[in-house]
């Protein structure tokens, strides 16, 4: 594709929502209030696994100030089948049970009842008055223990999908999936060198700053308004309508500004409860989670336990690859095991591949999406094993990857054959980076890893309204998490040929714009961007038509250039260009308001590849790891707003460093979560991080008007393995279980010293 030059796309403009955010004026979920609003609070199970024999709410109801109490009995039960809710296929039986426990509490923190009261103190008091008769059951937290024979069974009705003869067997394994390519026996027989190892990861929380918050207000005629912090107001609407037996048009959801989501705000928790309580109380109800509730009750990402086996020829050609991965779904099926299996070896061109994955339930909160769901877990095992292979072959870790990189024509193990992809370009950029060219300092280790994500499209709607003064309101339904308003406005400015500042992008509620699938999967700049461009083009066509009317020429004789209607050629007539503002001011006289609309299912999202390089130092006595230098290389298609592209790359790396080094859930022997706050759930702070150097590779996506692929998912895929590889470089020790926290690394270093001493 020829290099295009743009006036606005690719420039670093101030974000439209910036002033509000830095002055504290922006309204996040908990900032919405209604007159007469009640405080909603949720009672949560203290048990990891228990039958609920009965719930007595009478004392709570009798407490003055309590206006409504609810349990699962207030919501209809749902059939055990996959159904669409806001364009996501979900099992509504499970969703309704996750939102509020029915026959069983399945994890510490599982919601069992909720109250709405005039004050928070009364609401808390009411929770204490609800009597739940639990029959405590044995529980299981760990994924491999959940699969083991004799493990406590979470769901009597669960049978393993895709396994013959599983009809009669009680199990915690919800599904088995498998992908194969080539012939494994032949692969292994060609291999001169084989690596085989087991790896585990821990579930980690998305760690968004803003806890979930929702305010629901219902009216006597059954209409509901909901304000909440979400990645997808249309998905919230879809879920709530299904769970409460309502019509979608009766629920109007307005998304607040959002203090992070990372996938964790793609599902519902308190939203349907706030609606139900509001319906019962006849007043608005506000539910805001505490941080403790966020940790105990909302989705972390899935963890995995896996076995990886790789075979290669002496010269470093990988000829066989095998992955068996058990992923932890939490209390209900739905670990991202499909993507984990598909992404696992997607970066490589390998002839013989076998990948088997399992979706496993255990007594922990149901997982939610987290950046590139599943991919980082598989990459931890695969990318660690690739380095073990490089060590065994005596090859450079980056050379081995370059030699086996997926490229145009590579057939993946999950079916499709890659077209034009940026894996090779990304690896070349990594190899030529100043970082990789710089020698290590004494004591340091360097690690590399690569990562893949599909990127997705899905449904978006957008509208472009031209104001009477020639400024433009740009309307979409995609919550702005990573600066998407700025990116959408840049594309609109480019199309229209007007100043970026003349375009005001807004995020509309579910009643003010057509359906938009949620913000996630790195789709907004791609898919909503496409809708925006189409909507703007429709408005431009209308602008041309108005100019044609004024000039009394055919619309084909009018072109749009530099923000003006111009005659297509000298034969059209001698007309001065008409600016957007000049046409807009006469809109009423030439046919009424000038708007453009578009709605589409965006297809052809381009796959994203990334490579990351880390230098670390290890304190050999304490096991403390310092990340000294980090470079993140990624093919993003086109960087519409480079600041926010870099922000996504850096943010993914930060979360990956936390996942690698310290983040984990700590359970006591009763299955209760012990670290329910940021003091003991250790996400990195600024001083834990080096400057993270982004290198943006731009291989434009031919399916998008501005070449966008998607950015936000890939950067969290490589960090864990890359850091593990760097630690191996610095210490000679291969860590196989996350997190590589100081106590664990220190113990491993000591164990290695002991065995070295024994060898001497």
């Amino acid at each position, binding site marked *: 594709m020829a290099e295009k030059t743009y006036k606005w796309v690719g420039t670093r403009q101030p974000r439209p929502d910036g002033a509000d955010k830095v002055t504290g004026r922006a309204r996040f979920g908990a900032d919405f209030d209604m007159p007469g609003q009640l405080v909603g609070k949720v009672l949560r199970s203290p048990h990891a696994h228990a039958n609920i024999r009965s719930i007595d709410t009478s004392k709570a109801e009798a407490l003055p100030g309590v206006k409504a109490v609810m349990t699962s009995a207030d919501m209809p039960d749902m059939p055990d089948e996959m159904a669409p809710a806001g364009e996501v*296929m979900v099992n509504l039986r499970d969703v309704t049970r996750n939102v509020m426990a029915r026959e069983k509490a399945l994890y510490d923190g599982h919601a069992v009842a909720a109250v709405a009261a005039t004050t928070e103190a009364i609401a808390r008091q009411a929770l204490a008055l609800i009597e739940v008769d639990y029959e405590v059951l044995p529980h299981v937290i760990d994924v491999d223990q959940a699969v083991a024979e004799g493990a406590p069974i979470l769901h009597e009705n669960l049978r393993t999908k895709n396994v013959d003869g599983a009809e009669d067997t009680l199990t915690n394994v919800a599904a088995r999936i498998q992908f194969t390519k080539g012939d494994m026996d032949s692969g292994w027989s060609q291999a001169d060198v084989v690596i085989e190892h087991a790896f585990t990861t821990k579930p980690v929380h998305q760690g968004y700053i803003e806890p979930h918050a929702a305010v629901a207000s219902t009216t006597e005629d059954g209409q509901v308004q909901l304000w909440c912090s979400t990645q997808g107001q249309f998905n919230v609407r879809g879920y709530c309508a299904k769970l409460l037996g309502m019509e979608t048009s009766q629920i109007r959801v307005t998304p607040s500004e959002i203090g992070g989501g990372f996938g964790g705000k793609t599902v519902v928790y308190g939203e349907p409860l706030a609606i139900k309580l509001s319906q019962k109380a006849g007043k608005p109800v506000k539910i805001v989670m505490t941080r403790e509730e966020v940790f105990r009750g909302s989705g972390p990402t899935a963890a995995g336990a896996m076995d990886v086996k790789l075979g290669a020829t002496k010269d470093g050609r990988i000829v066989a690859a095998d992955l068996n991965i058990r992923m932890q779904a939490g209390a209900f099926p739905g670990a991202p095991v499909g993507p984990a299996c598909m992404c696992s070896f997607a970066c490589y061109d390998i002839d013989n591949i076998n990948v088997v994955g399992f979706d496993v339930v255990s007594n922990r909160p149901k997982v939610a999406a987290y950046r590139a769901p599943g991919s980082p877990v598989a990459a931890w095992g695969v990318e660690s094993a690739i380095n073990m292979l490089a060590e065994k072959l005596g090859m450079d870790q980056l050379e081995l990857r370059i030699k086996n990189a997926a490229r145009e024509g590579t057939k993946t193990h999950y079916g499709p*054959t890659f077209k034009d992809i940026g894996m090779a370009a990304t690896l070349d950029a990594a190899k030529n980076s100043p970082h990789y060219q710089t020698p290590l300092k004494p004591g340091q280790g360097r690690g590399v890893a690569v990562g893949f994500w*599909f990127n997705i499209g899905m449904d978006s709607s957008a509208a472009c309204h031209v104001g009477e003064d020639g400024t433009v309101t740009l309307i979409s339904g995609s919550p702005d998490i990573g600066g998407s308003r700025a990116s959408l406005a840049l594309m609109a400015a480019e199309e229209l040929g007007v100043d970026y500042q003349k375009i005001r992008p807004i995020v509309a509620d579910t009643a003010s714009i057509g359906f938009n699938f949620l913000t996630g999967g790195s789709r907004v700049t791609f898919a909503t961007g496409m809708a925006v461009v189409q909507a703007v083009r429709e408005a431009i066509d209308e602008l041309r038509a108005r100019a044609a009317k004024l000039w009394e020429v055919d619309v084909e004789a009018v072109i749009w250039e530099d923000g003006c209607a111009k005659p297509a050629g000298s034969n059209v007539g001698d007309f001065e260009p008409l600016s957007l503002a000049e046409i807009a001011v006469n809109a009423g006289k030439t046919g009424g308001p000038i708007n453009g609309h578009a709605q589409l299912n965006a297809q052809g999202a381009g796959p994203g590849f990334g490579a990351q390089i880390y230098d670390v130092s290890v304190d050999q006595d304490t096991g403390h790891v310092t990340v000294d230098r980090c470079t993140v290389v990624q093919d993003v298609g086109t960087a519409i707003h480079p600041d926010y592209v870099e922000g996504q790359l850096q943010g993914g790396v930060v979360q990956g460093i936390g996942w690698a080094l310290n983040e984990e859930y700590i359970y006591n022997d009763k299955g209760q979560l012990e670290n329910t706050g940021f003091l003991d759930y250790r996400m990195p702070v600024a001083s834990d991080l080096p400057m993270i150097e982004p290198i943006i590779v731009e291989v434009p996506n031919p399916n998008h008007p501005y070449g966008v692929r998607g950015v936000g998912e890939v950067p969290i895929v490589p960090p864990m393995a890359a850091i593990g590889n760097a630690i191996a470089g610095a210490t000679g020790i291969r860590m196989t279980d996350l997190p590589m926290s100081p106590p664990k690394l220190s113990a491993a270093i000591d164990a290695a010293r002991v065995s070295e001493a024994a060898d001497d």
Partner: protein
Amino acid sequence: MAKVILTRWLARQFTAGQIEHQVPGLTIRALARELEYRYPGIIKHLEDGVAVAIDGEIYQNAFLEKVEPNSEVAFMPPIEGG
């Protein structure tokens, strides 16, 4: 004829394990209908809750999408994201 690639478990359930199929049809819907004719019951697994890669590009909710005579069409699990 498009080259259709099924997931392993669909193949196990419906096609006696055969993963690759030569199928006539110029849209995803046409391919799905032809496969349903050959393997009754398979269509609901091809029309909902799946993604389709047409010549390496992923389509979600694909239905009326065009397919070239020599296209490779792979059905795969749907993809969401964070």
